[in-house]
């Protein structure tokens, strides 16, 4: 027994000593490697910034004809870092460069690497490069990769490339739960209005999380009221969806879309049986400031829920229908407006 306990103590001491040695050696090695990498990055940084930032089709000579894998890796990292911050012509030019010089192909190869962190990093790099031809590869990673982190990275990258061709894959990843809803929502927002046809279909999805994402994204996308289909889909969601969160998100979206039909739908939702939806409808009415919501907002000033009354007061003050109600929330809303907060 004593021997066993002594052995246990000795083995633990050995592990502690080994850990202390490993920690020290690792710290020294990381510091050394970090210094070396920083020097390498600094050597190419100016050239990359110049190439990405200026409207010059010809890349600086220092970026072409690199011989070692280390140099190419450093330039690839810098290109990904700076390309991710630009849009339009500059981005297309860099995308053409990374395609021509094999950086994109190398990242695509890494999408099939054995280690998940390499696959995930490759997906991020492809998203930063913005190479449209890589979207199919990224969509494959989104659908098939075993690692949740790689799927997340691929979803983000698809959004950053900004092409709508993988929108259906994003929505189905959301439906299956293989990628978190918030990641899909951001990717769809990044894609922008090109994703709208798929999003309209998603508002009627059998999956609650897909409907919720679709309503939120459509609202934040800044689609105008001229898109009658959008208003109709959101109207249906706001008034008939079985899920409270979806109805609330649809109300918020209607508030952002604007227009007469949206205002009428919002007015109808102020009578929802759930307080959170009524509150969302009053918030939307405040954003719309449309006279069609005035009667509904006035009624909501007497709502049983104080949060709804507060939201209604804010809308009422903006609509100018607050007179004579005597609600203390009106005084609060008027002060907010007078102080320039709303």
């Amino acid at each position, binding site marked *: 027994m004593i021997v066993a306990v002594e052995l*246990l103590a000795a083995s633990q*001491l050995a592990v502690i000593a080994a*850990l202390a040695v490993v920690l020290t050696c690792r*710290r020294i090695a990381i510091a050394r490697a970090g210094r070396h990498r920083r020097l390498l990055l600094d050597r190419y940084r100016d050239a990359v910034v110049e190439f990405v930032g200026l409207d010059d089709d010809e890349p600086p000579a220092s970026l072409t004809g690199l011989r070692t894998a280390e140099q190419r890796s450093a330039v690839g990292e810098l290109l990904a870092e700076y390309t991710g911050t630009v849009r339009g012509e500059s981005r297309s030019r860099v995308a053409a460069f990374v395609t021509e010089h094999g950086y994109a192909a190398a990242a695509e190869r890494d999408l099939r690497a054995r280690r998940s962190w390499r696959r995930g*990093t490759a997906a991020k790099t492809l998203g930063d490069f913005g190479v449209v031809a890589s979207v199919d590869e990224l969509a494959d990673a989104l659908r098939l990769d075993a690692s949740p982190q*790689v799927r997340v990275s691929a979803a983000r990258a698809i959004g950053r490339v900004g092409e709508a061709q993988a929108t259906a894959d994003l929505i189905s990843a959301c439906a299956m739960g293989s990628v978190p809803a918030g990641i899909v929502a951001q990717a769809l927002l990044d894609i922008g209005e090109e994703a709208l046809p798929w999003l309209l279909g998603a508002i009627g999805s059998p999956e609650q999380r897909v409907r919720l994402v679709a309503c939120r994204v459509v609202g934040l996308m800044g689609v105008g009221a001229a898109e009658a289909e959008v208003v109709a889909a959101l109207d249906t969601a706001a008034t008939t969806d079985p899920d409270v*969160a979806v109805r609330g998100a649809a109300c918020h979206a209607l508030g952002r879309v604007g227009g007469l039909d949206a205002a009428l739908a919002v007015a109808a939702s102020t009578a929802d049986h759930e307080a959170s939806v009524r509150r969302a409808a009053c918030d939307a009415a405040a954003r719309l400031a449309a006279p069609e919501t005035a009667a509904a907002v006035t009624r909501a000033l007497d709502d049983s829920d104080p949060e709804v009354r507060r939201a209604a007061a804010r809308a009422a003050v903006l609509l100018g229908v607050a007179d004579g109600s005597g609600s203390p929330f009106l005084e*609060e809303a008027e002060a907010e407006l007078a*102080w320039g907060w709303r």
Partner: protein
Amino acid sequence: MSPLEQLVYGYNHVVLAYFALMNLMYLVLLYHAGRAMLDRVQRGRMEAIDDLLRSPLAPGVTVIVPAYNEQECIVESVRSLLALRYPRFQVVVVSDGSTDETVARLEREFALEAFPRVYVPDIPTAPVRRVLRSRDEPRLLVAEKVNGGKADALNCGINLADEELVCAIDADAILDADALLLSCRPFVEHPDEVIGTGGIVRIANGCRIEQGRVEEVALPRSRVAAIQVVEYLRAFLTARAGWSRVNALLIVSGAFGVFRRDLVRQVGGYRVDTVGEDGELVVRLHRAMRDAGRRYRITFVPDPVCWTEAPESLAVLRRQRNRWHRGLAEILWFHREMVGRGRYGAVGLVALPATIAFELLGPVVELTGIAAVAAGWYLGLLSVWFLVAFMLVSLVFGMFLSVTALALEEASLRRYPKLSQLGGLVLYSLLEQFGYRQLTAVWRLRALTQALRSKHRGHWGAMDRRGLVRGR
């Protein structure tokens, strides 16, 4: 063998079994924590935090700062909170009957004026005397209320909150600029699942602090505080990261935690009759969500850092540990029906029983265990070698846990930049085992006896602070 000898001999076996089980549990937690930190390292390579800063999907946050006589630090604290990097947030300071210049200094500094805010006590609180706002800084709201304790002040802040999430933070704590961004990221990614997150709390003693920000990380000069650095790392990077991975995190630190406002209101806010209101809220949220059969997650996020001042004197440390252990006892008593029940999943079947056995009763078994082993030796039941070997393995295992927590820190976060600091932490993990650990066990045992007598509930934990945010 006489009955006494039989008792001592039997109890020694109980202590051995207890010790083996406890170590096994810590090893399992360590495994989960290691996996969680590995995930975090890999994730760090794949994403940029600034994406979230620009995202319209980021939910609004109300940062609630309960304050009781915090005149020394409140202005700098609010200023540093208002400078956080986050797309949409407000700061609500709740002065809980402060008798010093806490509110007056805020009024002067931020040109506050009375505001006709309608106070709706969804969660009942002590009366609110007045609400103040600044025309210059619309994100700041200050409420002055009748004293009711920290939990009551937090509840008042929740009642006043406008945003979707609420973040509770101590008035003297310092957040890293990205702390809110990082702790809210799980809410953005899993809006339908995540209901609470907690970040890591680190010790700011010894760090260089300028304008409410930690500019240079260093170890405290005080040995008592330095040992707590190791303790905190072990608690957060091993225990909380491990429990979080199996969705059985029982404590989100009161110094820094983010929750969904609607759910906190639904469950009735913070309990005012306990000194462990932070952990109690978390357990109550687990209970409510599992009773309702809803899918949810309460997550520990290792990146967002909240810096806090640790006690440097043993007297203050004793009071703090006493409060923590009484809080723990109260939480476990309030939710005793959850223990061992399958419907509460990993919380009811594993986390709560383990917390009772190894946290709550830990000091009892540790101190009586030492006595029993010594008695066994005195009665001739155990050899002196066994006594030495047992003590050695117990101390070495404690050190092993601390060093592995340091390894996790080193592999993932690396907040202590100098090699000498790393060496210092290894040394303190050794020193902790001799005297400090036994002393805290005695304090916790005393707290347990006080909790059993149900004394000292719902107070502000007074601590003699040196005032971190004013800089040193």
